[in-house]
């Protein structure tokens, strides 16, 4: 399969009063079309910063990020982002409106078409009975479902998910992980998924890139034979391999 997104020797820095702080140091990776790619690492390893750079929110101090061979310049709907925060929905729009609005502004659909398309994706995440509710009336898990529906509806080249389930209770998290896998089967979207949970990394990723912390550097990439599995011998084996790679 062809490389969809390529990161070449990228260094990311933050401005601090005492000087530049290097969050990510010389990272290279490539994500293939249609695969589920996981960025895994401990807190503070710069994995979220790397996702932000791919989304176009931060410019690399060195190196290049390319989507379909063209350098990434600023944010855009071809790299739809699902954030960790529950406040990523627009509070003044209904569930349907939250999904339909970006279709109007990014995909230039007309009102009727946008609503019909939005409703299709709201159904896909099982929230059609909440279509006219406002975000503050939803639980955290439901909000994340809407955010996923919104991102998928944009039919992005790659879906960027930044620890989307980290703020959820474990029962909701399990349910949403399962549902995400089912959705991706249908939508066939390329996925970049950031997590600090080994379990989640092994469940979601076709390949798992392991980052070390401060500054973030690539430890290695693991081909995951146990993708989609939770408590199997194969998944336990991959989990051990990931942990060993992280420990060095």
């Amino acid at each position, binding site marked *: 399969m062809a490389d969809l997104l390529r990161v070449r020797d990228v260094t990311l820095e933050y401005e601090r009063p005492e000087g530049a702080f290097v969050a990510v140091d010389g990272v290279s990776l490539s994500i293939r079309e249609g695969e589920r790619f996981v960025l895994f690492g401990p807190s503070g390893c710069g994995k979220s910063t790397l996702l932000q750079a791919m*989304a176009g929110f931060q410019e690399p101090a060195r190196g290049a990020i390319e989507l379909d061979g063209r350098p990434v310049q*600023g*944010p855009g*709907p071809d790299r739809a982002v699902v954030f960790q925060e529950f406040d990523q929905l*627009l509070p003044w729009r209904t569930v349907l409106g939250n999904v339909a609005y970006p279709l109007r*502004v*990014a995909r230039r659909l007309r009102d009727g078409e946008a609503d019909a398309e939005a409703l299709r994706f709201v159904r896909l995440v099982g929230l059609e009975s909440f279509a006219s509710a406002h975000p503050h009336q939803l639980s955290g898990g439901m909000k994340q479902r809407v955010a996923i529906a919104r991102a998928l509806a944009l039919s992005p080249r790659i879906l960027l998910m930044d620890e989307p389930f980290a703020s959820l209770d474990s029962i909701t998290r399990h349910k949403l992980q399962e549902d995400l896998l089912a959705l991706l089967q249908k939508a066939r979207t390329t996925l970049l998924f950031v997590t600090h949970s080994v379990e989640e990394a092994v469940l979601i990723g076709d390949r798992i890139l392991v980052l070390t912390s401060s500054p973030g550097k690539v430890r290695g990439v693991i081909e995951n034979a146990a993708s989609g599995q939770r408590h199997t011998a194969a998944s336990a084996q991959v989990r051990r391999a990931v942990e060993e790679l992280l420990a060095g």
Partner: protein
Amino acid sequence: MRAQARWRLAKIAVVTVLVVAWEGATRLFHVSPLLFPPASAVLRALGRSVIDGDVPGYAAQSLRVLLSAMAIGAALTLFLTSAAVTTKAGAAVLETLTSMFNPLPAIALMPLSLLWFGLGTGSLIFVVVHSVLWPMALNTYTGFVTVPVTLRKVGQNFGLSGWPYVAGILLPAAFPHILAGVKIGWAFAWRTVIAAEMVFGVAGSHAGLGWFIYQNRFEMNTDLVFAGLVTVVIIGLLVENFFFRWIERETVVRWGMSTAR
């Protein structure tokens, strides 16, 4: 709904207690009606003046000035704050202008206003615009810069920039602050328009409530002076409890950005 009705009732009770205390105190202590007429006398004077069409005409003139000034102020606020959040130069301009002019009393500009616009409605509108623009701009700008980072990124992720970004993300996200700014603007506008009308006197053929109050003090019609003040209070109560409350229910309360009352 029942809680809302009880709340409304509580507010009516406060007003009733104030009016009864006013009436009782003026009668009990035999205060000269030339200094402080009882509530009943003021309400009678107000009623007469409403039937004559005096107070409604003066109030309409004041409201005309006030609403024109607020509309101009809102347009300028939108322009200045949009420029401030989309460009560095715009931010420098807004912050400097606000810190220069916000502390400057509108009344202090009246001599200049008279020189520039003459003795007419234009002069009044100018000073009222000055009094509403800076607090509204300051509030709106505060609202814009305190929009959560995640919401900003979401807007940019949709590919929004420039005016569509301001209108689609920043304006609604900052709406609680903007509404607070408009409320402050509304209060400042009343203070300024009444004060300015007292100094200007009759602007052309139109006169406002400020002039009505001032003229009646001159003629020692103290009950009508109070009637003028009460009119301002009544308009304020009505606008706050019906118009602004309605906007809040339809927006910030419905969106879960403010708690319902």
